[in-house]
């Protein structure tokens, strides 16, 4: 008879088998994040800035103004009637309306940045056409470096969000399902150690975390040329610590819940603030200064910040120690509290 494997190994294997035999879970964990990255990546892909639409009120000077404004590479002028132009301006179809007889009058909403830019560009073009000479010839340098594009911001954010979602859902659903089936009660009727059951969830999560992280990072690299600039060891330590922190939160959420509805509500309640505040799609720098220290204590903020540092700025392990400490604290506290208050029946 072969020596039986230790319970922690059997429990981890069982958890992994259950998960891979659930086709929906495969979709949400592995396919969905890739689709999300693909659609967002294309929506925010690099493209030349839109030209600013400008209306010129028909009149004696209209044609010469049209020619002058067409000379500017950033303007998109057209001739409109006065009534038509005012309507278009109000509806935002044009950013600026040029009227006036001998000297131009600019009608625009000064709170709109493109309208202000349009006013400066249009005035410059008309002045130049009227014969104004530049005092000196300036030149332009356009910047679009890897690491500073929106997609470079987005991919680490999506990775962090995915690790959060799969960590919390993967554990919470499985535990509550086992509780509803009275399987937890059956397991504690054996000599199984309770912490082994919860540790098995963490170990199986680490296994899947490696697969989903490799998939998403490879995808970002092949499709959007986003790569991990920092050390892969640092990157791996970070992803695993983050994954364990969210698994701990999943265990805590599932520790008392008796129904799938209860655990879904609780998981959404906990994840919602992090979707908004933790800088997945946009930077949390816009939030007021007094709340930022709290935002930085959220596990997803810590993970996203550190992921961006490692992926984009090639930060070494030492420089993400604060974020790692935040994640480790979440992991240990949630696991211990979850184990303590866990409802086995």
């Amino acid at each position, binding site marked *: 008879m072969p020596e039986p494997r230790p319970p922690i*190994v059997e429990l981890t294997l069982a958890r992994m088998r259950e998960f891979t035999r659930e086709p929906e879970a495969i979709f949400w964990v592995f396919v969905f994040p890739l689709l999300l990255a693909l659609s967002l990546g294309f929506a925010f892909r690099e493209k030349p800035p839109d030209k600013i639409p400008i209306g010129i009120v028909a009149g004696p000077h209209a044609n010469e103004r049209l020619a002058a404004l067409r000379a500017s590479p950033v303007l998109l002028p057209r001739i409109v009637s006065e009534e038509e132009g005012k309507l278009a301006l109000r509806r935002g179809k044009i950013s600026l309306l040029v009227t006036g007889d001998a000297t131009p009058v600019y009608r625009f909403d000064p709170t709109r940045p493109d309208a202000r830019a349009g006013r400066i560009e249009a005035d410059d073009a008309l002045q130049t056409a009227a014969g104004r000479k530049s005092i000196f010839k300036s030149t332009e340098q356009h910047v679009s470096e890897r690491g500073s594009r929106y997609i470079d911001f987005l991919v680490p954010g999506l990775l962090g969000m995915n690790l959060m979602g799969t960590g919390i859902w993967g554990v919470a659903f499985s535990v509550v399902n086992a509780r509803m089936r009275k*399987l937890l009660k059956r397991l504690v009727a054996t000599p199984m150690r309770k912490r082994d059951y919860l540790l098995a969830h963490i170990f199986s999560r680490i296994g899947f975390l490696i697969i989903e992280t490799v998939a998403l990072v490879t995808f970002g690299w092949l499709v959007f040329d986003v790569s991990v600039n920092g050390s892969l060891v640092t990157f791996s330590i970070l992803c695993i610590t983050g994954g364990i922190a969210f698994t701990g939160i999943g265990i805590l959420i599932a520790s008392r819940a008796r129904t799938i509805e209860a655990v879904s509500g609780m998981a959404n309640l906990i994840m919602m603030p992090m979707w908004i505040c933790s800088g997945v799609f946009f930077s949390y720098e816009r939030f007021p200064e007094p709340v930022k220290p709290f935002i930085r204590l959220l596990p997803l903020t810590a993970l996203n910040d550190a992921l961006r540092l490692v992926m984009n700025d090639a930060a070494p392990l030492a420089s993400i120690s604060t974020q790692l400490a935040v994640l480790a604290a979440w992991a240990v506290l949630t696991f211990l509290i979850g184990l303590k208050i866990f409802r086995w029946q």
Partner: protein
Amino acid sequence: MTEVSNLAVSCVGLKKHYSDVRAVDGLDLSIGLGECFGLLGPNGAGKTTTIEILEGLTPRDAGDVTILSRTWEHDERELRERIGISLQETQLSDKLTVIETLTLFRSFYRRGHEPDELLRDLSLDEKRNARVGKLSGGQKQRLAVACALIGNPDILFLDEPTTGLDPQSRLQLWDVVARFRAGGGTVLLTTHYMDEAERLCDRIAIVDHGHLIALGTPKELIAKLDAPFIIEFTSEPHLDENEIRAVTGCRGCTRRGDAWQLRVDSLAVAVPQLMGAIDARGAKLVTLSTHAATLEDLFVSMTGRELRDA
């Protein structure tokens, strides 16, 4: 102390209440090593609460529990190694196969059976690689019992092991229990099936509303009935209770729906008298049946209710 060490399970003054319901109300039980003991009673009698307290899964309000001369408070891990449990309504993981499930449970025990051998013993070897979700009710229940047996326990606790199973699956499970006993094992099971209790158990405790209402071997219990035979009949129109009680040797009667049930000393005396009473009333006999008293009849006579739908 020899007396104590011969006991597999004992409890004294066991009490448990849920909000305002007294699920178990002062129960004393002693189950000897090697014995098969049945807790018999209708749904809600407190059987499951009792067995789960004895299994160390449900805390009790009062009373003492001793399992294999040990207590849950001091020796939980040791006891978990030595008992096997099949809960009522546990659903094992649908996504795992039979052998994976059994191998998982085997890993929890220091000693125990080889999973493949146990599958052969329980006629589950053909389903070795089938997912648990694809098994029939009887196969699932046998797997549940296999998980209880995998650690080669001294005591097997089975909570309603055959409820909802087809007759063939019940027979297969009875066979499993009989073989476990043949190996010296002790069994505590709950059931609301008379025939199951009569066939499997050395001794039976009948419980109702958390109380012990009768205890003994199946034969002793039936002997407790004041009358050994039962007559059931319906007539058009119905007879009144005093007309029935007038039958010689009638020890009692109960009305259920259209039917009257009489407990009598002798069929030879009672049946002709009953026919006479029906004739005298000018009524017509619609149905008539008689049988030797069973545990079911004992329960009805003691509580006025039936076991299965009480």
